[in-house]
């Protein structure tokens, strides 16, 4: 964690709280990468470590590789014993069926709309409150922060039933707002933004005030532009969380027009298509590939985020 913070090319000082999160101060002098050239360590012992790691890597990644390859196979080939690895005759049949017969285009759009809306809401609202909690003085601040933090510990299953009743009474069952509204803000987002903004110099605030800027303008024009790293982390985590969210959409989305991708895939894998293996593998690939792309594009930021917050 300390290394990732040090390496980050941001001009902004890292938030205090990310340092020594686990109760100790970072080693200030030791550069990364020298770890392995340890006194008295045996270079000869390394190759087998690489061997074991590679085997593990294969075991971890193989299911994904098999999924993607399988999505190009014919039904007959998928049922062969023993299973094949490379497709004998690769075809896009499964994908064309997915989008023509099963309407995966709609589910894909729904997933995108929900994930983008949820992400935008979290970025905006959580940074607003995060800034207020970190930089401003107001009555009820301590109480508000305590309540928000307390809910971090409450498992989702506790709010599930009343939340469903609430959304049902508001007439939002089977609508996209019903999928979006309950997730627009998160205590975790507030925590993350507050921690980051606390690390920014307070002089910024005073400088803005001297220049006559109002508090909201200071937030929008001075603070927010400096929050890039924290916003990136929160944005990626929220997007992936929303994209993969399963239980709530399963209950609220009740017709094909509001299904998200995971819901559609889960229902098809249990319904009449449950024996259509090629279709299911193609569906799984469509669910996984976008997050894979987002992840690969931002993985550095992402892993920094995990390391500093500890929450996926």
């Amino acid at each position: 964690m300390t290394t990732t913070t040090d390496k980050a090319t941001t001009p902004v000082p890292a938030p205090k709280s990310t340092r020594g999160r686990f109760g100790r101060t970072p080693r200030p002098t030791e550069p990364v990468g020298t770890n392995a050239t340890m006194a008295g360590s045996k270079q000869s012992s390394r190759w087998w470590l690489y061997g074991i790691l590679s085997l593990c890597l294969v075991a971890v990644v193989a299911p994904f590789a098999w999924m993607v390859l399988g999505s190009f196979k014919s039904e007959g080939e998928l049922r062969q014993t023993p299973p094949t690895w490379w497709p004998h005759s690769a075809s896009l049949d499964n994908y064309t069926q997915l989008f023509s017969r099963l309407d995966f285009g709609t589910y894909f759009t729904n997933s995108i709309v929900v994930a983008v809306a949820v992400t935008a809401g979290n970025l905006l609202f959580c940074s607003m409150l995060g800034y207020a909690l970190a930089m401003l003085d107001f009555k009820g601040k301590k109480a508000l922060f305590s309540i928000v933090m307390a809910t971090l510990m409450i498992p989702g299953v506790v709010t599930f039933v009343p939340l469903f009743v609430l959304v049902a009474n508001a007439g939002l069952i089977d609508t996209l707002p019903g999928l979006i509204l309950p997730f627009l803000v998160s205590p975790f987002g507030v925590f993350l933004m507050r921690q980051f903004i606390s690390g920014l110099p307070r002089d910024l605030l005073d400088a803005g005030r001297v220049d006559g800027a109002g508090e909201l303008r200071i937030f929008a024009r001075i603070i927010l532009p400096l929050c890039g790293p924290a916003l990136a982390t929160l944005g990626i985590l929220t997007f992936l969380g929303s994209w993969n969210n399963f239980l709530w959409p399963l209950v609220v989305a009740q017709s094909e027009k509001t299904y998200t991708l995971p819901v559609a895939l889960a229902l098809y894998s249990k319904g009449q298509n449950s024996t259509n293996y090629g279709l299911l593998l193609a569906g799984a690939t469509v669910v996984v590939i976008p997050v894979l792309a987002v992840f690969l594009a931002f993985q550095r930021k992402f892993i920094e985020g995990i390391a500093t917050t500890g929450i996926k």
Partner: protein
Amino acid sequence: MAATSEVTTRGEADPTGRPPRGGTAKSRRGGAFGEGRAAWILALPFCLLFLTFTVWPVIQSLFMSITDTRARDLKTPFAVDIVGLDNFTKALSDDQFLQAARNTAYFVLVGVPLTLTMALAAAVVLDRGITKLRSVFRLGFYLPVITSIVAVAVVWRFLLQEDSGLINTVLGWFGINGPNWLGDPNWSMPALILMASWRNFGTAMIIFLAGLQAVPWMLHEAAAIDGAGAWQRFRHITLPMLRPTILFVSVTTGIGYLQFFEEPFVMTNGGPLNSTISMSMYTYKQFGFGNYGYAASLSYIIFIVIAVVTAIQFRLLREKD
């Protein structure tokens, strides 16, 4: 809210609800109240959504848990009979719920140590053992974490098939006759634990890697000079220094695993013979049957279990001084 009333009594409230802008000396002097009002304006959207979709449901859930609310009471959530703690006593004598509790305990007691061991082993090797390709391995091991459980379930159901599954095929190369993983009540839970560990160890690994950065390098060098082997250094330097990280990871993993739901839901539907039904999943089933009051009380039982287990972990793993 308090800030607003203060503002009004001081007679300086801006009727537009916007914070004062421009004025130099005045806004400096009035900074305290302008600040308070601006803070609440910034906090307002969050607070409204948060009160509606988090705080209110938590309170209502507590109320529901002592009532006999059913699906037909949806429109009038407060016109129901209060039954006191009946739901809770009913849960404690509900065979299926007790079975679900045992399954959850099995999943947590085997799954958490397995996940943490895999994560720690990977983190230590990546941190100290190798110099090249570190980020490639880190990335690869983290991949399962970001993928949808539903997609993972589709793939793993194939991998776990009895005859043509990849896993049993590989076991066959070593002369092992693999079991019917998801069809055999004795093997269904191990299969889910295996899958959950595969899927989740990446998160723990990343946090361990961060924690390992805080282990002072000099201690290792000094111990190596004194003739301590790799295992001894791990046992007596790395592990004790990592204690806070291990606590953190075991608590977060434990909380997640105690709520495990999606794996059995998409893989086995709780079967065969209820061997993989979990507490969360049983709660969801009761919700599905329309027993809202009972489901709410079950969810509070899960909450209490999580709080107790977390407290125990803190006791066992907190730093000794």
